[in-house]
C-alpha cells in the first residue's frame, strides 16, 4: 500500500495528460517560453533538490512534457493528437508502459516513454534479439519511526509477472534499524528478461516519516523532556518514552534547561546501537493563586539570582 507508484504509469493516463498544463503554458507558447518554463520547473521539482512529497512525480511529468513540446515535430503531432486523437485512445488503453528512471542519464534499460509513445503513434517498433536482463523496478516505501525501530512487513504493488497490465501485491520484510534513504534490493523480482535474459530486481527506498515527539539523527534519537524548576534543582527520576518502551531516567540535582542527558543504546538498532538523547526543558508554572505568588516572592528573597549577569550589557 505504501509503494508510491511514481514509476509505473498507465498508458491511458499518460495519453490524457495535458503537457501544456503541466508546464504552465498555453498552446501558443514559443520555443523560448517552453525552454524557460522547463528550466524553472526543473529546478523547482528536481527530486535531488525539492523536499515536496510529489516532486519526483512532477519532475517526471515535466520531463515527458518537455520531451514532446521542445521538439517542433513531436509537438505538432501532439497538437494533432489533442485535436483529433483523444476519441481513439481506448484502442491502446489496455497497454501499459513501465518506465523507471526516465530522467536518469545512466539508465540504459528503461523504456523511454516518449520514444515508445511516438513509436506507437507511428506504428514502428524496436526489436532486440540478444538476451537482456529485465528492467529493475524502483519504488518507495514510507514507514513510521516505530516501524523502523522494530522492523515491519509492508505490502507493495508491482506489475504482474504474467500479465504486466495488472498489478500484484508483494509482501516485503523491512528490517529493524533501517534508515531513511536506505535501499532494499529484492533480487529477481523485477521485470521478466528479454529473450531469455534474467529478471530485473526491485529496489525499494525507505523513507521514515516525521515523528510527533522523537527526532532521529544518524542512529540517535532525540526527545525534549519538560520538567519543573524544582525537579531540575533537586533532581528526580522521571519516566520517559523511548522507542523500546518507557524507562526511568534519573535527573541529577542542579540540572539546567537545554542540558542533554544520554540514554545509552536506547537509539536505533543496527550494527552500532544508537543512543537516545533527552533534552531537558524547564517549564515554570504560572503563579495562579496567592500562595504561589507568595512562594515566588519568597524565592526571589531567599535566593537572589541574576541569570543575565554574564551578558555584556546590564539593564
Amino acid at each position: 500500500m505504501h509503494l508510491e507508484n511514481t514509476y509505473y504509469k498507465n498508458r491511458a493516463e499518460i495519453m490524457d495528460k495535458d503537457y501544456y498544463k503541466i508546464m504552465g503554458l498555453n498552446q501558443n507558447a514559443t520555443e523560448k517560453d517552453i525552454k524557460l518554463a522547463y528550466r524553472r520547473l526543473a529546478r523547482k521539482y528536481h527530486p535531488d533538490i525539492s523536499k515536496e512529497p510529489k516532486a519526483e512525480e512532477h519532475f517526471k511529468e515535466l520531463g515527458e512534457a518537455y520531451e514532446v513540446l521542445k521538439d517542433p515535430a513531436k509537438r505538432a503531432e501532439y497538437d494533432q493528437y489533442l485535436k483529433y486523437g483523444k476519441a481513439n485512445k481506448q484502442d491502446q488503453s489496455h497497454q501499459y508502459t513501465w518506465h523507471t528512471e526516465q530522467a536518469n542519464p545512466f539508465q540504459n534499460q528503461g523504456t523511454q516513454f516518449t520514444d515508445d509513445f511516438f513509436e506507437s503513434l507511428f506504428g514502428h517498433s524496436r526489436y532486440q534479439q540478444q538476451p537482456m536482463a529485465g528492467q529493475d523496478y524502483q519504488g518507495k516505501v514510507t514507514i513510521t519511526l516505530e516501524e523502523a525501530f522494530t522492523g515491519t512487513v509492508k505490502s507493495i504493488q508491482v506489475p504482474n509477472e504474467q500479465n504486466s497490465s495488472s498489478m500484484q501485491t508483494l509482501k516485503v520484510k523491512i528490517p529493524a534499524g533501517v534508515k531513511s534513504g536506505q535501499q532494499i534490493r529484492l533480487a529477481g523480482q523485477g521485470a521478466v528478461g528479454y529473450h531469455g535474459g534474467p529478471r530485473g530486481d526491485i529496489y525499494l527506498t525507505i523513507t521514515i516519516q516525521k515523528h510527533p515527539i522523537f527526532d532521529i539523527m544518524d542512529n540517535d534519537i532525540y526527545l525534549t523532556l519538560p520538567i519543573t524548576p524544582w525537579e531540575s534543582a533537586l533532581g528526580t527520576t522521571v519516566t520517559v518514552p523511548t522507542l523500546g518502551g518507557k524507562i526511568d531516567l534519573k535527573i541529577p540535582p542542579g540540572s539546567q534547561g537545554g542540558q542533554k542527558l544520554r540514554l545509552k543504546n536506547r537509539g536505533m538498532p543496527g550494527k552500532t546501537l544508537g543512543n537516545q538523547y533527552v533534552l531537558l526543558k524547564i517549564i515554570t508554572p504560572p503563579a495562579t493563586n496567592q500562595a504561589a505568588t507568595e512562594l515566588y516572592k519568597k524565592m526571589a528573597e531567599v535566593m537572589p539570582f541574576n541569570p543575565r549577569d554574564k551578558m555584556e550589557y546590564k539593564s
Partner: protein
Amino acid sequence: MNKEILVGVLIEDSTTISYTEVCRKYSIPQKLLAEMMEHGLFSNKSTQIEQLTLNQKELKRIESAFRLHHDLGINLPGVVLALELLEKIEKLDSELSILRKYSD
C-alpha cells in the same frame, strides 16, 4: 497471488562498490567520473583510481551529481557546490527539527 513474505537485502551504508563497477553500472565514462572526483565530489582515498572503492553515501552523491548535471545543465563545480549545500541543509533541517520541538 504471492502471499509469502519476501526478505530482501538491505544495502548497508558500508557496502562498497569499485570505481570500475560504478562506471559500468551507470554507463558513465571513467574519465567523467575522474573529472567529478577532481572537483571534490568525494575524497580521493587512493591515488590509483582503478583501486578506488565507494560506499553507498558516495554512490548516492554520484547519482545525484549526474542527475543534477544532466537534468539542470549545471557544470561540475556547480554540481559539487549544490551537493555540499544540499547536504548542509539536510543536516540543518534535522537539527532545526530537534530545536523546534524544544522551543514549542
